[in-house]
């Protein structure tokens, strides 16, 4: 009933409640409730109400709304495209990555023009730019996804503990999270990288660490809000065990906002990966393709070869856009009332 509300109506009008439902969904239920024999003509006039025996769960309903949402589809297509490119990079790329076999064509002041062999030209190290971009998708996506996953897991554990137990566990965990939050994420990342050395894992850990507080707070807040709801009280009064209440009632109902946040965070993670590589914290081997670093390397030639910055920048922006679109539509699908 709450699924298809007219988003524009003020909350206190009564039409939002019942008229909004396209048709009475379960007449069989209603009839047996009222125990009413209806005249045949009336039954016929009302007829055609197929009684669907299967219910639609909230997850299923959300998925149905998601696939009907154009921006979700666009987002999903973009994301899928980049994932495919990343996975099939060796097949798609015309050349081997990080090779500098055309270095002799590069001069400090000029790059060779686009050619059929190199549709996007060469980069300053003498590699094929298209190949580098395709393999860069791998780095960016893997680092982005893994770091978000790490952050999500860490945050979910901390937030879940705080939300499930409350009391001193909550206080301890949240103070810890507050401390994490008080350190600027860039500083945190630089310190992590400094400790772990220049390797992709350092970037992942750095980004994940910066995300942990976000997820922890979100899940904890969400669980706290759910815990106060009547259905949790009803579960207690039925004598359910604490574990059951937390794991099968509170947690599933609290995950929605966290999932949305994770998708949105993926977008920022990809940008952060670029930012950290830009600062020189990523992979030590300068030839390994990564969008952020490609931007840095192109900087000196911004005047003479602007496309060197344009293409990786575009890749970063489009991927981030894809995840953002997906995340926003996921938010709408999970909570149709928030749609504006």
């Amino acid at each position: 009933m709450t699924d298809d509300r007219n988003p524009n109506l003020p909350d206190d009008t009564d039409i939002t409640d019942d008229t909004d439902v396209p048709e009475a969904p379960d007449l069989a239920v209603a009839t047996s409730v009222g125990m009413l024999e209806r005249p045949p003509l009336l039954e016929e006039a009302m007829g055609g109400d197929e009684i669907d025996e299967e219910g639609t769960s909230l997850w299923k309903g959300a998925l149905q709304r998601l696939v009907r949402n154009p921006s979700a589809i666009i987002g999903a297509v973009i994301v899928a495209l980049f994932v495919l490119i990343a996975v099939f990079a060796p097949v798609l790329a015309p050349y081997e990555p990080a090779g500098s076999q055309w270095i002799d064509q590069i001069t400090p002041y000029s790059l060779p023009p686009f050619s059929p062999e190199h549709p996007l030209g060469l980069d300053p190290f003498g590699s094929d730019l298209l190949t580098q971009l395709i393999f860069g998708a791998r780095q960016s996506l893997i680092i982005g996804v893994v770091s978000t996953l790490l952050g999500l897991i860490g945050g979910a554990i901390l937030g879940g503990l705080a939300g499930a137990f409350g009391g001193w566990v909550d206080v301890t965990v949240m103070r810890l999270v507050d401390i994490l939050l008080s350190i600027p994420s860039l500083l945190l990342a630089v310190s992590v990288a400094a400790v772990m050395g220049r390797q992709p894992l350092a970037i992942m850990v750095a980004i994940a660490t910066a995300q942990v507080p976000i997820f922890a707070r979100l899940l904890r807040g969400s669980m706290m809000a759910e815990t106060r709801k009547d259905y949790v009280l009803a579960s207690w009064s039925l004598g359910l065990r604490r574990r059951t209440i937390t794991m099968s009632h509170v947690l599933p109902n609290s995950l929605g906002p966290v999932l949305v946040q994770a998708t949105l965070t993926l977008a920022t993670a990809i940008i952060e990966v670029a930012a950290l590589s830009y600062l020189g914290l990523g992979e030590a081997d300068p030839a390994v393709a990564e969008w952020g670093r490609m931007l840095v390397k192109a900087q000196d030639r911004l005047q003479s070869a602007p496309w060197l910055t344009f293409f990786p920048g575009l890749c970063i922006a489009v991927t981030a856009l894809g995840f953002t679109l997906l995340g926003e539509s996921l938010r709408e699908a999970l909570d149709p009332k928030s749609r504006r």
Partner: protein
Amino acid sequence: MADGSEGLDKLDQRDDLLVVDDLKVHFPIKKGLVVDRTVGHVKAVDGVSLRVRRGSTYGLVGESGCGKSTFGRAVLRLEEPTGGTVTLDGVDVSALSGEKLRQARRRMQMVFQDPLASLDPRQSVQSLMIEPLRVHDPRPQAELIKRAADMLELVGMPRSALAKYPHEFSGGQRQRIGIARAMILNPDLVIADEPVSALDVSVQAQVINLLERLQKEFGLTYVVIAHDLAVVRHISDRVGVMYLGRLVEEADADELYQTPLHPYTIALMSAIPIPDPEVEDRRERILLRGDLPSPANPPSGCRFHTRCPYRQPTLCDTEVPELRVIEGHPGHRVSCHWAESILAGRVEPADSLVVEAAVAE
């Protein structure tokens, strides 16, 4: 109840399923930046004692903020009582804890006001229904499902409802599911907190009738908490009226409605609109002044004296009135210093607060 009617009391005692004695729920008010300090207490329930006879319905009425919902939750130990005891069928529920308390819960259930909020939106009706059985009475899945289906049928829902989710039903149907879920453990006591107030008018009677039918069928004992005096009167055998955390009057339903003695009850009853113009035009309405005082800082003496139309210059603001039985009205308890005088018509409400009948001309 130790005063006046001891003989009657002893006779009834064996029959009392629920005995609540001096129940208190105080919520601390906390303030402070770093360390929380308790600066006071909201006395949501402040010393309520009542008995509910086996198989009967006790109606608890009062306006929002009077503590009636908190009382219900404290009885079920969904809220930790600050003091007092709750005895269910001879077992002191307020002394139980941990696993023992959890086991004891199957005997006392709750029906909530908002059925959408009280059913987990992500679970199918089937898993909602068999979940309590699985905890208290583990059996093969098929057997549990059958019991769930039987229970649904009993509340007038088809078997097909099992596969659906709470949001796919209308308010009345959801409330039926909520009731079926509470009844599936075969409890002795059911506390219904505003069971119909969230439903459409035309559906309320269905749910009221259903509750009555189930009571007959299973010999249930009800405590019905509601703000709607008409509904409470309809289903209750005995009615208690709460004001600011205290019971101010208690009597059998018919007696209470015929001879309300506490000024609050009188005003409450005169405030209920009756769907009959003839009655509406003839009746005199007693208005209360102002709003409910804060339960964190209740008035001295009689808690109602700040709004009481019958307020007298003495006693009211200094002495706390006892809940006592009124002579000539056995079983009718009231906490007002002037109950006898009001009954005899010696004390009249303040003129400014009486709205005369409209058909004066």
